[in-house]
């Protein structure tokens, strides 16, 4: 209705466009402020840098086909140390792993896979959780009760064991493993968002929007949702570090896709472990370090975001 009116009155349309631009500029200013505040904190800045570096590696790795950089060498399959390790392979910074694959390149490819799947789990979980939490918190009653009981149940199951059970039943390729993790990953987000919604919806501006005749859907998405997202961003950042570890761990304990070399960090550690951890320590050390550095990075970023996004500390 209102959009029809606007299209017939050019001067009004112009002012709406100006309003939208102003809104967009305000939002951009907020993002810029967030980044500036983050960069002011050395640890958070380091976290941001590490996270961006991993994303960069992942993007770069998707442009390089496996067959070009993961060359197997069955004539000489046993792991060789990096050149600086002592009696290592000249020119190789990270050594090689079984079967004669350059470990640096394998990690390069592996970061892409690990990052992709853990981001899928965390972002997917966050998205489902936000929607469920929003509706449960806003509408309340039966839906709310059902959600809270569901999250209670999922909380009472040790995550890894349950993921093992689900992945076991569903199959053992990356996609089903991902689904198994996703089933478990949204309830905490739903709980987080619900708690936020419960306090945000008591605000005067929600009442004002309702008095102005805004629909429930509009209030939920325009007025309530944006004010609940800060802790979600923090949680997403922290969770990325957890999920990437769980993903690698599941692959390590026996969910590696069958058939050939899989460039995934948990699988890389497993290959090294199979060959003998004590004889070829670098095959275990470097893939694990790649996990640790990423986890430290997103943890630092998450901690920084928590401070920076807190409106009480913001200005």
């Amino acid at each position, binding site marked *: 209705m209102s959009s029809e009116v606007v299209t017939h009155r050019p001067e009004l349309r112009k002012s709406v466009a100006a309003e939208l631009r102003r809104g967009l500029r305000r939002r951009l200013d907020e993002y810029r402020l967030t980044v500036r505040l983050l960069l002011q904190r050395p640890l958070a800045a380091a976290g941001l840098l590490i996270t961006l570096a991993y994303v960069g590696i992942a993007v770069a790795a998707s442009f390089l086909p496996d067959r070009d950089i993961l060359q197997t060498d069955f004539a000489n399959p046993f792991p060789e140390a990096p050149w600086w390790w002592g009696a290592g392979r000249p020119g190789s910074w990270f050594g090689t792993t079984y079967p004669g694959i350059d470990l640096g390149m394998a990690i390069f490819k592996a970061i892409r896979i690990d990052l992709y799947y853990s981001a899928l789990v965390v972002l997917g979980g966050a998205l489902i959780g936000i929607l469920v939490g929003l509706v449960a918190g806003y509408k309340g009653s039966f839906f709310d009760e059902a959600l809270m*009981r*569901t999250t*209670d*149940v999922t909380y*009472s*199951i*040790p*995550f*890894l*064991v*349950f993921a*093992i*059970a*689900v992945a*076991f*039943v*569903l199959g053992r390729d990356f996609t089903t493993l991902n689904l198994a993790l996703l089933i478990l990953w949204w309830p905490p987000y739903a709980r987080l968002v619900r708690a936020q919604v419960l306090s945000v919806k008591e605000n005067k501006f929600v009442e004002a929007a309702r008095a102005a005749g805004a629909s429930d859907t509009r209030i939920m998405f325009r007025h309530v949702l944006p004010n609940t997202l800060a802790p979600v961003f923090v949680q997403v950042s922290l969770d990325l*570090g*957890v999920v990437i*570890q769980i993903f*690698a*761990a599941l692959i*390590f*304990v*026996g*969910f590696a896709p069958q058939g050939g070399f899989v460039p995934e960090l948990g699988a890389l*550690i497993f290959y090294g*472990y199979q060959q003998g*951890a*004590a004889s070829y*320590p670098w095959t*275990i*050390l470097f893939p*694990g370090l790649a*996990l*640790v550095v990423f*986890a*430290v990075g997103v*943890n630092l970023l998450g901690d920084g975001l928590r401070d920076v996004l807190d409106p009480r500390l913001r200005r």
Partner: protein
Amino acid sequence: MRLALFIVRRLLLLIPTLLGVTLITFVLSRAVPVDQLVAIYINPHSPLPRDQQIAAAVRLLHLDEPLPVQYVYYLSSLLHGDWGFTNTNLFAGAVTDAVVLFFPPTVELAIAATLLATIIGIPLGTISAIRKDRLPDHVTRVVAFTGYSVPLFWLALLLQILAVQYIPSLPIQGQVTPGILSGRSWVVGSGVFDSQPTHFLILDAALNGDWEVLRDALWHIVLPALTLTYGVLGGILRMVRSGMVDAMNQEYVKTAWSKGLPEGVIIRKHIRRNALLPVTTVVGLLFAGLLGGVVLVEDVFIWNGIGRWATVAIISHDLATILATTLIFALFLVLVNLVVDIIYAYLDPRITL
């Protein structure tokens, strides 16, 4: 009296949780094809044709009933102690028999790690809070921080590598030196063993006065316990530190300072005692969390507990075992949470029961 009421209410709340957990394992168990479910009932050498055997097994397991009815049968068989059969290279037989064997080592490991984490965590957290924003605090926070970021199975492997290199006498896998248990009257079996009277090897060795086994078992628990401790230390440190920092700013602490009480007394009696309350919860939850982390650590250290049983089952394609371990872990977690809640309610007079 009010505590009793609280416990009763908490116990009643267990019912929907347990129903939910069993519903999940039930759905998972029915999500696999029927011939996989009945596979162990099929005898290839039997004169009966395969189809008839499958049909008989389907009837036996009530797989031809509607799903809700099947769920009721499932629950009733769980309550009757019929948890199915496990067939891994560690143990073949009834799941309930296997649990008796695999549960004690896991609990032993979890208790060792919880103790270690508490013993290290509380003093370190105290130092961190007292020397806030100075070097000890920074060091402690780095320790806590990396604890979250290090995959436990990887840490376990690194510790093994280091032990092989630098402390060759430190055992890197197993619960005891192979063969040391043979001829001991109080232990049955060798790889997966059953010790008397409590099934807990370390405790039983002490009870039977067998110092050689006791020393050997304690020596073997060092590395896995250390690995797990590192993983959960961060949580305890963070909790103790923030609790103490909060408490330090309270009015009664200022009063204590102005009364001229000695620093040690203020730290121990006024600050820490109040800061430790939330730590009770964390220690309880850690114990539960350890049971999750234990899966990976047991796998690397060949520690024959529930976790290793579960990982072996993945490779053996043993669904009954996977579901049984899921249920056991969930039941255990639920119980630990219950106990923690009760202890917390008991300790903190402000909690309205």
